[in-house]
């Protein structure tokens, strides 16, 4: 099983009020793609993830595979599975390349 896990050296936090504000705006049909809801602190620099990115990040806890994450997030977003899967895959590939995520290769 290829489970996704966060780089343990990265300090991160969900910005709860911000996340709620983004959820409210999403509900109201507004554009929120560029709004950060999760902050990551990496070597003294701050990076942010948007709502979808933050949700994916949250789920990369070393217990879930890409498939699991897609299935869970399908319940949150009203989109086609294939489309969501492609988006998530792109995001995860990017973060793996940056060294922020990795696949846990252990089998069981």
């Amino acid at each position, binding site marked *: 099983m290829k489970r996704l896990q966060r780089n343990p050296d990265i*300090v991160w*936090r*969900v*910005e*709860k*009020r*911000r996340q709620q504000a983004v959820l409210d705006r999403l509900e109201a049909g507004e554009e929120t793609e*560029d*709004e*950060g809801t999760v*902050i990551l*602190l990496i070597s*003294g*620099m*701050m*990076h*942010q*993830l*948007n709502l979808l*990115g933050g949700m994916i990040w949250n789920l990369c806890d070393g217990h879930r595979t890409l498939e699991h994450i897609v299935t869970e997030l399908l319940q949150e977003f009203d989109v086609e599975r294939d489309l969501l899967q492609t988006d998530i895959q792109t995001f995860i590939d990017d973060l793996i390349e940056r060294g922020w995520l990795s696949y846990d290769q252990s089998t069981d």
Partner: protein
Amino acid sequence: MTNPLTEQFSAPLTFNWSLSYRCNFTCSHCYSREEECDELSTPQLKQIVDVLVKHQIPFINFGGGEPLLRPDLYELTTYAREQGLNISMNSNGWLLDAAAAEKISTAGFRSVGISIDSADADLHDDFRIRPGSFDKAVNALDVLADAGVRTTMSSVISRINYRQFHDLLDLARKYRVPQVYLHNFKCSGRGFKNRQELDLNPQEWKEFYVEALKVKEETKDLLISFDDPVIASLPGYADNSLVKGSSCGKLSLNLRPNGDITPCGFIPLVVGNILRDDFEEIWYNSPILNKMRNKEAKGKCQGCGAYEDCLGGCTARAFATTGDLSEPDPHCWK
């Protein structure tokens, strides 16, 4: 990737925490020698850790006083580490021998900063009013590195060292220190009393920072860090700080030994107590914190082109010298 986070954070990222104001030194520039304060019990300290965990505050930096004077430092650190917090501390190094370094490593400290004011041993000892303190400090750096603990070196820039800061960097290299903090001089406590002797004038500050920023830019083997917002107006200042102006009350808060919260260690205004008061109420609604977050340009800052980045410089220095949080930083050369 996303727009900059312009709104306030949901909590600070760091708590600078003095477990005790007791110290085995009486340094000439120290802000906390005149402070007296009750200390909390170990269970109360753990309760504070629980509050920090609850509010997702990821970093604690123990300062002082001398943190190693609290025998429960390791127990507290282990407790905080178990809950995912990242712990560092600043020490004068006097008590930090190989056995202490092992304990620090086992407790899981992320890094330990040792204060060194001059690469000249006599000058350092003189300034710290303690013969042998230089040797103990560099030995602390050595034993920490041997124990696999990341070290940093903290030097408060003052009249005794500003022309020789290159020597401090060489000292860091010699003792395997990857990061050097050249701290700004704060004018609080003894630093305030001794400021005629120790503080530079604005023009000297400018010259120091112009040079130091250039060296930082050219230096690849060592991380050089500053914590002085007044440098935002200088060429070569790479803007990668997380907030504009002073970070106190925006990214960090300060905890006194009795649990009182102040915006930073150098601003003696208590905004609440972490054990007695609701933390979110303090964080979002403290009039003092909000005033610091929304400073208005006063005096020469009005119309200054750098204000947007500098926000009047160091709020603590402005407050110490004028009693007003929004006045221009007295170190400003403009």
